[in-house]
C-alpha cells in the first residue's frame, strides 16, 4: 500500500480533508471520476453585453446547442438549466442505480463536485445550530478560520447578521446592487420595527474573492455568476485540485468512480473502482487501510450502507425544505438595469423562533438582473406579450429571496434494495407535517418585514422549491456520542467500519437553516487534522 490515506471524492469535503493530511507529510490518494467541464463559456463580457451580442450567438451561451435551457422545468434552481454546468450532475443517478420519489437527488461525478455550481454562501454554524452535535463551536472554529483563509470569503463583520454568521477572516465585501442597497438602508432606519418580527438582516457572506490571488482573479461584477465565472472568483474545489496535485505526496486519480468498498480480513479495504466514462473499462481495485469518505452525502451513504450490508432498511437522510419569494420595490419599476453587478447573494436574513432558536429560518436575497427574464415571465398569469412587458419594467425593481428551514422539517429516507444480484438505491422524500404551517408563517412574516422596508411581495410570488434541488443533503451517517446503526463517532469514524471516516455532509448531525457547505468543509478539516495527528504519533 503506497498511500497512508485514500480520499473518495474531490468536492469541497474531499479537498478540505486532503490539505491537513498532505501538509502533515502523509501520502494521500484521491479517487474520483473527476469529469472536466465540456462546454466552455463561448462569449466574454457582462451579462448585458452578451445578451445584446451582435453576432446573434447568445442563445448558445444561455441555452446550449441542444436547447436544454429552453425546457419548461419549474421549481428548480436556475443553475440546473445552465449549459456550462450540465456536466456536473450528468449520469449521477445512473452510476448509483438511484431512483427517487418526492425529491430530486443531487450529486456529481465532476472534479470539484457540486462546488462547480454552488451558490457560494459561506456561514458558520453557531451553538444553536450545533446543539445536537457532539462537537461545539470551539472545536470547529480553528477549522472555519483555516478554510476561510484558504478559499477567500467576502463580507463584513460589523452588522446585525454578522454574529449569527460567525467570526472568520473576511475579504472586502462585494458592492451591493441598487435594490439591496436601498433595502439595507431602510432596514437600518427601521431596525427597531422589523426586529420585533424576529427578523434580522445584513450583508451575506460569499466564497467569492475581491482581491486577486495567484490562480484566481477578483470578481469583475460581470453579472455572469449564475452562468459560470470565467475568472475563478467564485470558489470551486476544482481550483484547489491543481494546487494539491503539484505536491509530491498527493495523487489525484481521475476515472476512478468508486463502486464498492469491501472490508478484508486483515482490517484493510478493497476499493472497487471503474471509469464509468470508458465503456472498455473493466474496473480495478485499490487497497487501503484508512479511508476518508467524501463522495457527497448520497454517494457516501450508499457506499457505507453497502459495506455495512444494511439492505432493505430505510435510513433517515436530511434535506432542506426550501422556498422562494419575489419582491418588488415600487420606486425602481422601469428604472434602467445595472451594467455591472454581482449576481449571487446580496443580503442574508434570519427569521427567528424565540422559544426554539434551532428552528430558525435563514435566507438570502438576490438581484434578479442576472437571470433570463423569460424564466420569470412564465410565472405570470398574463398573456405572454403582457408578461414580457411587465417583467421588462419589473426586473430592475425585483429582489428574490430563498429561504431554508432546518433539516428537522424534512422526513426523507434512503434505502438499498436488493434485487437478485443487483443493488438499487432508493430515495424517498417528504416533509414533516409541521412544515406547511411553518411555510405559511414564514411567508407572512417575511412579507411583513419586507413591507416595512418598502418592498412588496408580488402576488403569487411565494413558491415551494422541489425538495433536494438545492443539493443540501446531510445527516445520513451523523456524528453521535451514542452507538447507533449507521452513525459515526465525533471523529467521523463510521461505526462498524474501522478507519473509514466520513467527512462530507453525511457526517453532520443536524442540518441548520444555513447553507451547510462551509460547515462540511470545516468539519472535514477538523476530522483530518485529528487523523493526521494520530497517524504522525503512530
Amino acid at each position, binding site marked *: 500500500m503506497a498511500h497512508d490515506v485514500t480520499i473518495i471524492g474531490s468536492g469541497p469535503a474531499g479537498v478540505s480533508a486532503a490539505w491537513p493530511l498532505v501538509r502533515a507529510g502523509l501520502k494521500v490518494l484521491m479517487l474520483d471520476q473527476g469529469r472536466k467541464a465540456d462546454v466552455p463559456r463561448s462569449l466574454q463580457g457582462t451579462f448585458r453585453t452578451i445578451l445584446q451580442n451582435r453576432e446573434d450567438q*447568445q442563445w448558445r451561451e444561455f*441555452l446550449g446547442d441542444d436547447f436544454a435551457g429552453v*425546457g419548461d422545468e419549474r421549481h428548480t434552481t436556475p443553475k440546473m438549466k445552465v449549459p456550462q454546468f450540465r456536466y456536473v450532475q450528468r449520469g449521477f443517478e445512473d452510476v448509483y442505480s438511484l431512483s427517487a420519489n418526492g425529491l430530486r437527488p443531487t450529486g456529481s461525478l465532476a472534479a470539484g463536485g457540486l462546488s462547480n455550481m454552488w451558490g457560494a454562501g459561506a456561514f458558520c454554524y453557531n451553538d444553536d445550530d450545533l446543539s445536537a452535535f457532539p462537537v461545539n463551536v470551539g472545536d470547529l472554529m480553528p477549522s472555519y478560520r483555516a478554510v476561510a483563509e484558504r478559499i477567500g470569503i467576502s463580507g463584513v463583520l460589523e452588522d446585525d447578521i454578522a454574529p449569527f454568521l460567525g467570526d472568520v477572516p473576511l475579504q472586502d465585501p462585494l458592492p451591493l446592487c441598487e435594490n439591496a442597497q436601498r433595502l439595507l438602508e431602510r432596514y437600518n432606519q427601521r431596525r427597531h420595527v422589523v426586529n420585533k418580527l424576529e427578523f434580522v438582516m445584513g450583508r451575506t457572506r460569499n466564497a467569492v474573492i475581491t482581491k486577486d490571488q495567484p490562480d484566481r482573479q477578483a470578481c469583475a461584477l460581470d453579472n455572469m455568476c449564475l452562468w459560470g465565472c470565467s475568472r475563478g472568483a467564485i470558489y470551486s474545489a476544482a481550483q484547489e485540485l491543481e494546487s494539491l496535485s503539484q505536491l509530491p505526496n498527493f495523487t489525484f486519480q481521475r476515472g476512478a468512480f468508486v463502486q464498492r468498498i469491501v472490508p478484508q480480513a486483515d482490517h484493510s479495504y478493497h476499493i472497487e473502482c471503474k471509469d464509468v466514462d470508458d465503456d472498455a473499462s473493466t474496473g480495478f481495485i485499490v487497497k487501503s487501510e484508512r479511508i476518508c469518505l467524501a463522495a457527497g452525502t448520497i454517494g457516501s451513504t450508499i457506499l457505507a450502507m453497502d459495506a455495512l450490508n444494511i439492505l432493505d432498511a430505510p435510513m433517515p437522510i436530511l434535506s432542506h425544505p426550501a422556498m422562494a419569494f419575489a419582491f418588488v420595490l415600487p420606486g425602481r419599476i422601469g428604472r434602467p438595469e445595472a451594467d455591472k453587478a454581482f449576481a449571487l447573494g446580496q443580503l442574508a436574513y434570519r427569521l427567528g423562533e424565540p422559544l426554539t432558536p434551532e428552528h430558525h429560518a435563514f435566507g438570502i436575497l438576490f438581484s434578479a438582473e442576472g437571470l433570463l427574464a423569460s424564466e420569470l415571465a412564465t410565472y405570470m398569469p398574463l398573456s405572454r406579450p403582457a408578461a414580457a412587458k411587465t417583467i421588462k419594467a419589473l426586473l430592475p425593481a425585483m429582489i428574490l429571496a430563498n429561504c431554508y428551514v432546518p433539516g428537522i422539517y424534512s422526513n426523507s429516507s434512503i434505502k438499498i434494495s436488493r434485487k437478485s444480484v443487483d443493488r438499487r438505491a432508493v430515495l424517498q422524500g417528504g416533509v414533516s407535517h409541521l412544515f406547511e404551517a411553518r411555510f405559511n408563517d414564514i411567508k407572512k412574516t417575511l412579507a411583513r418585514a419586507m413591507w416595512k422596508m418598502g418592498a412588496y411581495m408580488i402576488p403569487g410570488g411565494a413558491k415551494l422549491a422541489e425538495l433536494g434541488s438545492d443539493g443540501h443533503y446531510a445527516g445520513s451517517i451523523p456524528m453521535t456520542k451514542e452507538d447507533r446503526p449507521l452513525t459515526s463517532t465525533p471523529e467521523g469514524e463510521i461505526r462498524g467500519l474501522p478507519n473509514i471516516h466520513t467527512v462530507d455532509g453525511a457526517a453532520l448531525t443536524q442540518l441548520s437553516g444555513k447553507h451547510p457547505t462551509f460547515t462540511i468543509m470545516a468539519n472535514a478539516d477538523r476530522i483530518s487534522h485529528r487523523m493526521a495527528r494520530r497517524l504522525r504519533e503512530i
Partner: protein
Amino acid sequence: MSIHDRESEAILCYILAAKPSPTLLKRYILAIKTIDDKKPVGLYAFTLSWPSFLRLFDPPFPARSPRQTRFQKRLNAALTLCETSIEGVHRLRQQPGETRAGILLRLFGALLVDGLTMPLRLVVWKFW
C-alpha cells in the same frame, strides 16, 4: 411550409409583434423538435394569418388540456428564444435610449388589453 412551421411562425410573430427572421424561425423549429414532440398544437387557421388573436388562446392559468399544455410550452420556448436573440431581446430587456415613461406606458397598454380580453380568454381557457 408545413402546418407545424406555420404555427411556429405565428407563435413567434405573436411574441415579437413582428415577422420573425428566417434564422430565428429555423432556430425555434429546431428547439421545439429537440425539446418537445413534433405534433402541431392545432391552432385555428385565422390565428395563423392574424397571430395577435393568439392572445385569446394564451392560457391565463395552468393549462387544462394537453393542447393547452403544448401551446403553453411552445409560447414559453418562444419567449426564451426571443430574449436570447438580437431581434427579440428588446421585448424583455431594456435597450439603451428607452425611457422609463415609455416602458411604463407600454406596460399600461399591455395590461389594459389583457384586462379587456380576460373574460374571453377565461371562456377559451375553460373550453378549448
